[in-house]
């Protein structure tokens, strides 16, 4: 019935692609651990699936996160994603209304204008024609933007655009040709037989005035079909793998599959779900401060995927999380990076035997300063003063014989050694019998929360100060010092603590809002996660970050991490850098 050889390239391409994807995904999913599989089975028939469906719509089609970062880019992606989706859906409905059989082959809807004799009308045929033209126009406008982006990436607010391999350029060209071909094919056909709407019909008449469209229409349909088929065949080997993979990843993520310490199937999904949008490039301070443009997730993931050497990239990352916070696909970029740092430690029972068995005094509240806390005694003094003012009795776990929380070890990949430190610290925390563990160091805080599995409340001192102030145990008086807050990576993006420090700082000073608030805070450069850059490069990052904050002319730059404080004060001392605890101690 409705058949013409020109549909073959499209049909073959589509079927090969579908078979390839199904095999690939099933092979990955089969390597999930039994625990992960149980999680999937538990959640597959729950509201989580609906939630995932909504997310697929918002992210994969509307691209609403890209919109928030960059409206131009968002519109461009939406034109492609949503536009193509609508073209398929509306086209399918149109073909169903015309033919009323669900079992017409996929190509029938795609090449509807070819098969449908224009003079034959059906319900709402004009509305459909109008809609289809509108959607095509939308896609073509996105295409124009994409072309402009290639030519003038700066004009669209993107400093850098991703570099491409020749193969990527090939498939990009194929993709960009699909819709112009469709436009030409439909216009020519409309010029010959009528049909179409404001776009294709007018264009058809226009082309008719100077082109032999009668003989061009059929080849144009061939070209359209070949472009589609070729795109489907090339897709698995290109970055456009992200289109199907992102959708599967969103479902897996919503069902509760987590990126663990090892590179597993969920990592594979993430690797292929990266759309190479390049948003992570502009967020990275290694790029903006040091001009290192080969380590951002887009390049890092690409290297892993194509089996290129990525040993430098494994180590060269501050794990500041700035890219992760902006990644529209919500990839777990820090965790992925960490999977590439192997554990090479050979520890024995005696390695850490030197660490004494601690026995801190028992108390309701336990305080842990952390290694970095001990490097900045003023923070500890401030906390001691605050405890005293608030009349809180506490036990100081690592006053003298403290050890590291283990996170720096984990960041170097050495999980076995870290686990010994974790056990030792855990023993002393439990010995203290405390209900609340307060720490001054966001690095310790994150580790206590995520790796220690303590059954007591863990608080960063900003949260604890906030609690004391709200309970009126501490009554600070606001000073008129103008402050800018530098939210440490591990506290804000790392542990999602934003409100507490903001409240506390507002209570003791005049806080200036900056472009670097909340998720957009900078990295101080002191991060222990980077095992590659040299100390002077750290200073460069630190200095750039400092100047970005100081552009708001605060009297004091306030942070909530002893490592940030130490790093900034080492770099420059134009403006005092204080911990939030010091600000509170001075003003109560």
């Amino acid at each position, binding site marked *: 019935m409705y058949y013409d050889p020109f549909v073959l390239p499209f049909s073959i391409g589509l079927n090969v692609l579908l078979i390839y994807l199904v095999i690939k995904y099933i092979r990955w999913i089969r390597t999930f651990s039994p625990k992960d599989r149980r999680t999937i089975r538990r959640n597959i028939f729950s509201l989580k699936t609906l939630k995932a469906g909504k997310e697929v719509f918002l992210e994969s089609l509307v691209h609403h996160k890209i919109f928030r970062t960059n409206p131009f880019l968002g519109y461009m992606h939406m034109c492609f994603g949503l536009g193509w989706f609508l073209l398929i859906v509306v086209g399918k409905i149109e073909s169903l209304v015309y033919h009323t059989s669900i079992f017409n082959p996929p190509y029938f809807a795609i090449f509807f204008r070819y098969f449908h004799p224009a003079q034959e009308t059906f319900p709402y045929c004009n509305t459909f024609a109008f809609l289809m033209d509108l959607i095509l126009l939308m896609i073509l406008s996105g295409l124009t933007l994409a072309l402009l982006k290639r030519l003038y990436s700066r004009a669209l607010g993107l400093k850098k655009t991703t570099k491409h391999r020749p193969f990527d350029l090939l498939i990009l060209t194929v993709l960009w040709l699909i819709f112009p071909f469709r436009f030409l094919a439909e216009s020519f056909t409309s010029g010959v037989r009528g049909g179409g709407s404001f776009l294709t019909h007018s264009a058809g008449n226009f082309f008719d005035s100077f082109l032999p469209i009668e003989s061009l229409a059929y080849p144009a349909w061939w070209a359209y079909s070949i472009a589609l088929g070729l795109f489907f065949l090339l897709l698995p080997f290109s970055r456009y793998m992200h289109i199907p993979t992102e959708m599967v990843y969103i479902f897996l993520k919503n069902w509760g599959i987590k990126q663990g310490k090892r590179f597993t199937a969920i990592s594979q999904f993430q690797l292929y779900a990266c759309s190479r949008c390049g948003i992570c490039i502009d967020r990275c301070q290694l790029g903006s401060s040091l001009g290192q443009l080969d380590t951002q997730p887009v390049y890092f993931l690409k290297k892993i995927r194509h089996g290129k050497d990525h040993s430098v990239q494994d180590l060269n990352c501050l794990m500041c999380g700035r890219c992760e916070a902006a990644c529209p696909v919500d990839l777990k970029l820090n965790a992925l990076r960490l999977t590439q740092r192997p554990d090479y430690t050979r520890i024995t029972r005696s*390695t*850490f035997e*030197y660490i004494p068995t601690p026995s801190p005094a028992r108390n309701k509240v336990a305080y842990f300063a952390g290694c970095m806390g001990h490097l900045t005694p003023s923070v500890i003094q401030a906390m001691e003063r605050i405890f005293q003012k608030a009349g809180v009795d506490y036990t100081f776990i690592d006053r003298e014989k403290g*050890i590291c929380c283990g996170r720096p070890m984990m960041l*170097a990949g050495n999980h076995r050694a870290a686990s010994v*430190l974790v056990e030792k610290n855990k023993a002393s925390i439990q010995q203290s019998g405390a209900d609340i563990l307060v720490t001054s160091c966001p690095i310790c805080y994150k580790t206590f929360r995520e790796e220690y599995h303590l059954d007591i409340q863990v608080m960063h001192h900003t949260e604890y100060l906030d609690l004391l102030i709200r309970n009126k145990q501490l009554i600070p008086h606001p000073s008129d010092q103008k402050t800018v807050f530098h939210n440490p990576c591990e506290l804000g993006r790392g542990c999602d603590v934003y409100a507490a420090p903001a409240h506390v700082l507002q209570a003791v000073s005049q806080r200036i809002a900056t472009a670097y608030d909340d998720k957009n805070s900078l990295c101080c450069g002191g991060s222990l996660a980077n*095992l590659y850059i040299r100390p002077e490069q750290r200073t460069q990052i630190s200095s750039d970050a400092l100047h970005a904050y100081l552009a708001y002319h605060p009297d004091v730059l306030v942070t909530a991490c002893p490592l940030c404080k130490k*790093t900034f004060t080492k770099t420059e001392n134009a403006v005092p850098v204080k911990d939030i605890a010091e600000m509170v101690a001075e003003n109560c």
Partner: protein
Amino acid sequence: MNFWGFSISEARVIDYDKNDKTLAQIMATEVPSSKLCIGCGGCTATCSAGNLTEFNIRKLQMLAKRGENKELQTQLHKCMLCGKCLLVCPRGVDTRRMIWSMLRFINS
């Protein structure tokens, strides 16, 4: 036997020709800042591990540079990689990276 409270020290000869300098070379290329060390001992003074036991990171890096790797092999694992030494070093030696590189070498 140290019967009288005195003993004769073993002969201490650093034989640069016989010592294995592979590690020293790796350090020099991977962590060029290690050459900047002036042996001030700041790192050792602040060290979390050194606070609890006989562990001297300044000495260990000196031994490594001389190619005397024996003590290193038994001692270096005690480091917790906490990074305090890196923050206090007045010369900008990337001590933590240096330890990490040495550990990797020892273990491979």
